[in-house]
């Protein structure tokens, strides 16, 4: 005859109460450490990297905004979970179980409030999106970027100011752009998908073979930053890195001229 065995096994005793408290404490650690990690992150230097673009602050602002909002939801829900675990523990809770099948009003409340919140986020962010991906500036392209396994080929218009002519200036993995100017890049790929990722400019765009995709931005500070390939493109994906140099118009032109001369010397 099989033995009946069940929850009764865990009936009240001292040890059990302590163990229960321990579990509740463990769940409490989640919000505490979760928040802690995010507070610590900026000090550890693993947080949004320095932003040197005109649109980046909007993205960072959105990130922070969503972080605060979801953070609040996170803390609230986790704390409620822990409090309920504490309050309604089998040992602690002397009241009879609240026999209920739910509440229509509550359901409405917790459908409508998140709905409104989410709708708000959705609408709130549209401008930033439009700025980066929809409102394309009406200027000739500053340069053409062609991704290929595993390098970035950059092509600047030569003295005639037109791309795809004989006097174009070619570089590899060495991206220079003038500061405080509207830049428009034509992004292409020769072989597979790549992704043109400038972390500090808050720019990311996949390069799709067969399409020319416009990318635009405006840099605000002089400096040197990473150009990362952010889409798996084969075994060498990890080493497909370029260098972005943001410099003054003058330096930029000097550099361009120098490159042009180097190129002519070779030919």
């Amino acid at each position, binding site marked *: 005859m*099989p*033995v009946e*065995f*069940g*929850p009764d096994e865990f009936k009240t005793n001292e040890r059990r109460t302590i163990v229960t408290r321990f*579990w509740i404490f*463990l*769940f409490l650690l989640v919000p505490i*450490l*979760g928040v802690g990690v995010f507070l610590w*992150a900026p000090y550890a230097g*693993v*947080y949004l*990297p320095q932003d040197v673009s005109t649109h980046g602050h909007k993205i960072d602002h*959105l*990130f922070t905004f*969503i972080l605060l909002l979801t953070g609040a939801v996170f803390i609230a829900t986790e704390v409620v*979970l822990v409090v*309920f*675990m504490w309050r*309604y523990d*089998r040992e602690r809770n002397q009241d*009879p*179980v*609240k*026999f*209920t*099948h*739910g509440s229509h009003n*509550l*359901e409405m409340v917790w*459908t409508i409030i998140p*709905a409104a919140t*989410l709708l708000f*986020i*959705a609408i709130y*962010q549209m401008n930033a*999106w439009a700025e*980066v*991906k*929809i409102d394309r500036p009406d200027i000739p392209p500053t340069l053409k970027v062609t991704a290929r396994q595993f390098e970035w080929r950059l092509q600047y218009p030569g003295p005639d100011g037109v791309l795809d002519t004989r006097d174009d200036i070619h570089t590899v993995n060495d991206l220079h752009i003038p500061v405080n100017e509207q830049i428009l890049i034509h992004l292409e790929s*020769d*072989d*597979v998908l790549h992704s043109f990722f400038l*972390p500090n400019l808050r*720019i*990311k765009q996949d390069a*799709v*073979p*067969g399409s020319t995709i416009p990318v635009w931005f405006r840099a605000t500070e002089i400096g040197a930053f*990473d150009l*990362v390939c*952010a889409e*798996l*493109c*084969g*075994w060498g*994906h*990890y*080493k497909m890195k370029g260098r972005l140099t943001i410099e003054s118009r003058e330096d930029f032109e000097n550099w361009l001229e120098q490159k042009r001369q180097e190129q002519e010397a070779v030919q």
Partner: protein
Amino acid sequence: MSATIAHGHEGAHGDAHAHSGSFLTTYVFSRDHKVIGIQFLISTLLWFVVGGLLALAVRWQLAWPWADMPIVGRMLFSAEGGQISPEFYTMLFTMHASVMIFFVIIPILAGAFGNFLIPLMIGAEDMAFPTLNMLSYWAMWPAFILMTASFFVEGGAASAGWTAYTPLASVHQAAPASGTGQTLWLLGLIFVGISSMMGSVNYMTTIIQMRAPGMTMFRLPLTIWAMFITAVLQAFALPVLTAALFMQVLDRVLGTGFFVPEGLMINNETAGAGGGQPLLWQHLFWFYSHPAVYIMILPAMGMVSDMIATFARKPIFGYKPMVYAIAGIAGLGFIVWGHHMFMSGMNPYLGMTFMLATMMIALPSAIKVFNWLGTIWGGKIELTTPMLFSLAFVSMFIIGGLSGIFMAATPVDLFIHDTYFIVGHIHYVLFGSSAFAIFGGIYYWYPKMFGRMMNETLGKIHFLLSFIFFNGTFFTMHILGAGGFPRRLADPYHYEAFKHMQPMNQFMTICALGMGAAQIIFAINFFGSLFFGKRVGRNPWRANSLEWQAPSPPGHGNFDFQPVVYRGPYEFNSPEVDEDYYPQTQPPPEKGGQEKQKEGEQH
């Protein structure tokens, strides 16, 4: 196809009364849903070890890139001097994700729990089509063999990520493994698809047609609702993936050009005549694979709902909203796939539409979370191992879900797309949620499966270690992502900017190793309890749903009485009875007939 279906049907009938059979038909080619469920369970646990070990290799490389792997390294890659090569790294995470998703989470939820629970919970003697059911299990083996065989072919296993983005995946010249390995991967997935398809139509038919008298749709346990809607999701989404997989196979084998544009130059070689669209693959793939992530969470949510109600000794809060939320997630799940493609060069206006839909999909999830909290409110919570895993599910799903909101916001996704933020999200929803629910489910239904209890102490240690090490491994990924740390890099420290993140990665790797070790405890518990676990009666947890009224383990035909259902599955602490539980089959006291029921139980 139709032949098997029809045969299966006839078979259902003939087999129901066959009590004896050879070893082969009883345990191997069994058509009993319980045996098939357990077969699925054990195979998927085995595959979980495979996927997990691949993950540990990934972690090893991320913590100590190009360092010799201790012991294993010398054995496996002596050619590279015991190191993981970048080619091999890409194969590692591709196969890790493919195994985990297609061979662990989906088959364990739909295959193992679906098979085991559906007939028991609706009061049927078996699935509608037992032979089809058996085939759906056996289709998994060719799939797995094809997949793993690819490690041993020229060029190695698939290495284009589990998303197999074209043209990397579809052009031979693009990657060493885009030779045979990728083709095997595709064929393997086609088999997985066939298996899921057979399961899906079978589950739908069974749930629609074979519920016990009195078991109306709104008296079904939420697990069954979730399984049902999962099956619907699969029925609509999977064929699209199958078509896409076939097209990629054709691109690779016959030289069609669906996903290959013209003029492709790889290593200064032209790659086929082309004429196709690389992004078409992404659309078709995510049309399946976004619903697929809900295929991987909905059954888990259903199971958790059952466990939470049982261990809070309280009816589920808002049963109908829960059902509608499941349906809502499924419905919305079909119109949000584009959120994986925000940066892909997709039409940016389309991106906005998908963003809006993605935001809205958080709503049904919110309803579910709040209803779970509502369920434990005012209850009498028993922190058994399954309950701990279930509450951890809720806790972790909140994190995983909320991180989804960041990515749904297109401008934020612009920055965090393809960074570790995504990897964090993936593992919070897939490991912290789905896998935790699976562990809980195993502890909860183990007594029903094997007639023995799993050891509670070991279970709690397993939970404690998993919980701590899981969060240790994956929580920090969020801030790594915020720091721009890209995913899928064989050596992230190739970039100066990421060098200072190496210590964090080492910490994560150590936690991952700890998590692996914690699973050893689980394995010991699982297999040890088969022999040493305490024997149990029918209803060890004093739960209400039908499976607990059947013997443990249930015999052939499941029930030794005709189940008749009088109420929903969550009537705990009902004022109508003295006991704190009220089985679905127990007739209401006023109407009498209790004796008759008792009789039925004593068979």
